[in-house]
């Protein structure tokens, strides 16, 4: 009897600890891959509210955004995490690109400066993450210095990774190409914008975090 009671008590405390643990889940990737669109989708699905603004002009997210205590449920399992949306990581930020996209010079220069700071901040935060969702645009070439550097560093730091090929709704999207670029990870193809294949995404989220 005492043994059963001891086991029950131990289970109770273990579950209590599990509930208290706040898993930090980071969204990383190059600019315009759809990190914030995915963050918004997750928040909308489970909290009923969005996280941040999205735009066609790159480097829209230039500051770290955190949404705390998101609980997702699947097959009687629960996962609670803090979602950290990070600015897009790039090797070159040029205000002239923003001018081409319709911004005025002053605005474009400020955006470039903030985006550069955003890259530094995103990298600085990496060590705080328990798991990372890398969001790539599946319609673009995956073999870029940015993608290889991000994924290589996550591997070196032993941070669990969920690799997302986003924008599968686009004709040019090629999940197989993303998969062959990073064969060490299973790539989940989704459309964060239209909510396609998010069931698989949530399923894998449980896998990498539990």
């Amino acid at each position, binding site marked *: 009897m005492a043994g059963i009671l001891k086991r029950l008590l131990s289970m109770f405390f273990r579950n209590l600890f599990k509930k208290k643990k706040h898993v930090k889940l980071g969204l990383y990737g190059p600019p315009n891959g759809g990190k914030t669109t995915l963050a918004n989708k997750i928040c909308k699905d489970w909290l009923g509210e969005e996280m941040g603004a999205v735009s066609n002009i790159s480097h829209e997210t230039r500051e770290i955004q955190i949404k705390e205590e998101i609980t997702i449920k699947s097959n009687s399992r629960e996962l609670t995490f803090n979602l950290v949306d990070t600015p897009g990581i790039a*090797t070159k930020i*040029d*205000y002239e690109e923003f001018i081409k996209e319709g911004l005025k010079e002053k605005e*474009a220069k400020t955006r*470039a*400066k903030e985006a550069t*700071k955003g890259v*530094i901040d995103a990298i*600085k935060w990496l060590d705080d993450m328990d798991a990372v969702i890398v969001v790539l645009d599946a319609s673009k070439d995956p073999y870029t210095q940015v993608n290889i*550097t991000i994924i290589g560093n996550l591997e070196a730091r032993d941070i669990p990774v969920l690799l997302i090929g986003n924008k599968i709704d686009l004709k040019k999207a090629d999940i197989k190409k993303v998969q062959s670029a990073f064969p060490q990870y299973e790539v989940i193809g989704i459309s964060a914008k239209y909510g396609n294949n998010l069931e698989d995404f949530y399923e894998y989220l449980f896998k990498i975090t539990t």
Partner: protein
Amino acid sequence: MYDDGSNEILQGCNCGGKLFFYIKKSAIEKKEEIIKLSQKEKKQIEEDIYDIIGSQIDREKPIVLDIETIKILKPGKYEIDLVNLFKKQPLIYKLEEGKYVIDLIESFKKMSEK
């Protein structure tokens, strides 16, 4: 251009400037492209750097920016060396009463933990 440990770097330039770019001797020998900047552009870059590296920096003390990690070609044009940034190479070297180095990324991290 000033040599390592020169008075200007330790105490600031006569012109009032306290922000220096670190240029490797090998780069000078190779005569890599030198971009000419106007006084206005220099001032703007200086302001942008202070914005990027944070308000915690004491503007009264000389700072040497490690251009191996972040290159600012002109105001609004940046090149980021991701490999070194991920390796936590120091972004800037801050000189204070002599010479020593503060890893800004690490110190920021410590601040955010408090």
